[in-house]
């Protein structure tokens, strides 16, 4: 318990100190990470705690973003809604739309619930380009962040702190929610809706409430996004955002409170770091998701929390050496796989096809080396690395697993 609090204090301190040491590009990435973290936490209230998997959460994020952009233009940053309070607008509209959509969606459970949320979000996405007044058509709508309360909000460091404040506030509120009677009932909704009904609870109303709260915090996340980029475009309503919040949350682990937030922050940093380096980054993201689901079904944070609970971090020479071997083997496998994908991507690209004039086919450059398309080394090396890596991984994980004769 005490270590937990200490870790949290350290994490918050690091977040507050971050802009002092980060480059402007990284501050921008951090803002995106914070927004993604809040969005994933809001989503996971519904998905992880209430057990209702929504495939259309981009709708409430988008509604929050557009509501904020319109409020920015309408109030010009003065009067009732100065710039720092604009996320309230996003939250309010998220709440309203959540009540309306949730009323329909929570009439059904399971797959049917997911389908309704998906349909509602797609409806909005299809409608948006035609409502130019509201969604601004292809170009979207832009607005200006106005100075308020002595801040200009001109630099992205100020935007960072504004975002940090709102994200931390919302995370605290979401955490406190889990401690209240209605928060406990939310878990009951996930575990056994039928039983809850026979205990005298109106489960439809409860479902609508959880849905609306989740949509409200999603709206705040959308509002922060709108504030950050000073614009909103209807592509924000796209299915892709709905899908990525699902993936991010599961990678982090939907059943632990900070799991989704950490998962989303990691994945949006991954996107920021890797999307500049390679065109295949979506493939890597997908592979990562599949691997996490296969080997760590509770998510990264969920699995970590479970091991801490079970006290499975006993150190000793043998365990330590097996752990090091595991990491090295994982490195081998990753390097082999990345080589493979990058080579394939280059050989199958249209650029490469246009370079082919007669035989022999020209080599491509990767990692400062020339690779020929029909050489054994080109394909043998990455495959060999992968094979060695996977073999060692298998060995190391057996050494680490007491149930399979490893050291404990």
């Amino acid at each position, binding site marked *: 318990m005490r270590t937990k609090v200490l870790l949290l204090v350290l994490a918050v301190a690091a977040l507050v100190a971050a802009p002092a040491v980060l480059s402007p590009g990284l501050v921008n990435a951090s803002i995106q990470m914070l927004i993604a973290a809040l969005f994933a936490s809001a989503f996971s209230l519904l998905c992880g705690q209430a057990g209702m998997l929504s495939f259309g959460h981009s709708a409430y994020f988008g509604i929050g973003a557009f509501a904020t952009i319109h409020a920015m233009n309408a109030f010009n940053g003065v009067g009732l809604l100065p710039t720092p309070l604009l996320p309230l607008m996003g939250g309010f509209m998220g709440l309203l739309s959540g009540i309306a959509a949730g009323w329909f969606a929570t009439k059904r459970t399971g797959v049917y619930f997911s389908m309704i949320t998906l349909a509602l979000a797609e409806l909005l996405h299809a409608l948006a380009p035609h409502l130019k007044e509201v969604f601004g058509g292809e170009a979207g709508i832009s607005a200006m962040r106005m100075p308020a309360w002595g801040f200009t909000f001109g630099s992205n460091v100020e935007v960072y702190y504004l975002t940090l404040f709102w994200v931390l506030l919302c995370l605290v509120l979401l955490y406190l*929610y889990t*401690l*209240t*009677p*209605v*928060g*406990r*009932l939310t*878990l*009951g909704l*996930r*575990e*056994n809706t*039928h*039983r*809850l*009904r*026979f*205990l*005298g*609870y*109106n*489960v439809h*109303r*409860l479902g609508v*409430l959880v849905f609306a709260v989740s949509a409200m915090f999603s709206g705040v996340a959308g509002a922060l996004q709108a504030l950050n980029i000073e614009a909103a475009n209807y592509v924000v309503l796209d299915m892709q955002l709905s899908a990525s919040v699902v993936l991010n949350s599961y990678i982090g682990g939907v059943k632990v409170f900070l799991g989704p937030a950490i998962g989303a922050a990691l994945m949006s940093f991954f996107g920021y770091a890797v999307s500049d380096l390679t065109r295949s980054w979506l493939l890597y993201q997908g592979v990562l998701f599949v691997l996490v689901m296969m080997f760590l079904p509770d998510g990264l944070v969920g699995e970590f929390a479970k091991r801490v609970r079970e006290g499975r971090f006993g150190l000793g020479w043998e365990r330590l050496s097996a752990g090091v071997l595991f990491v090295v083997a994982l490195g081998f496998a990753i390097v082999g796989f990345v080589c493979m994908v990058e080579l394939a991507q280059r050989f199958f690209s249209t650029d490469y096809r246009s370079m082919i004039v007669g035989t022999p086919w020209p080599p491509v450059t990767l990692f400062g080396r020339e690779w020929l398309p029909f050489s054994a080394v080109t394909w043998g090396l990455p495959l060999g690395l992968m094979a060695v890596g996977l073999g060692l991984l298998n060995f190391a994980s057996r050494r680490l697993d007491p149930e399979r004769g490893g050291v404990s």
Partner: protein
Amino acid sequence: MSTPVLSLHGVRKSFGPIEIIRGIALDVVPGERHAVIGPNGAGKSTLFHLISGQLTPTAGEILLDGLPIGGMPPHLVNRQGLARSFQITNIFPGLSVFENLRLAVMRRFGLEFVFWRRASRLKAVTHLVDELLAQVRLEKRAGVLASELSYSEQRSLEIGMTLASDPKVILLDEPMAGMSHEETEYTVGLIREITKGRTLLIVEHDMDVVFSLSDRISVLVYGQIIATGTPAEIRGNLAVREAYLGEEAS
């Protein structure tokens, strides 16, 4: 005999062209343990579903303390003072035993859409949960996940959840199904204890249990009650013996 707390008149239920419940009249008086027995497919579970609000009767009237509850949604039936358990264990498997009971107890205090208080600081709720834990003898298991309890402990937990709302009438649907002899004996003792001063309507297959536990028995055969009476009367009833007990004894 005092006024019945639960009474059914001419209750019928059809699924398509098939009539499962064919006109039932039943009175349960306050404080009695009343068992419903009958061969498989007689409609015992359907009858419970009708009373608890899971199904709506096609015809007839169900009164709880004089108030019609036929066709009322389950959560409102529960609030009128009728709680039930299920044939297949129906608990919150991923939550602790304590949490299971707390969810059941909170409703009694009207704590449904409350997000300005901490659940752990609700003294009256916690107190009542502790009381229930003691009643169903699960004090030592409070922190364990419900899914990790033994089968009979899970049934005890469910009985505890049924008691949580302090109902006028308790419906138990085959509480002893699938239990070993020792477990059955244990659970019968538990039910006897917790239903003191309450009204119980129970469906059960184990005849020893039924005859030792109940004050009155109703025999349901093909959607109709063919006899109601004390255990001794039922045992002596010729129609019952022919329709039911004869088969069961063999």
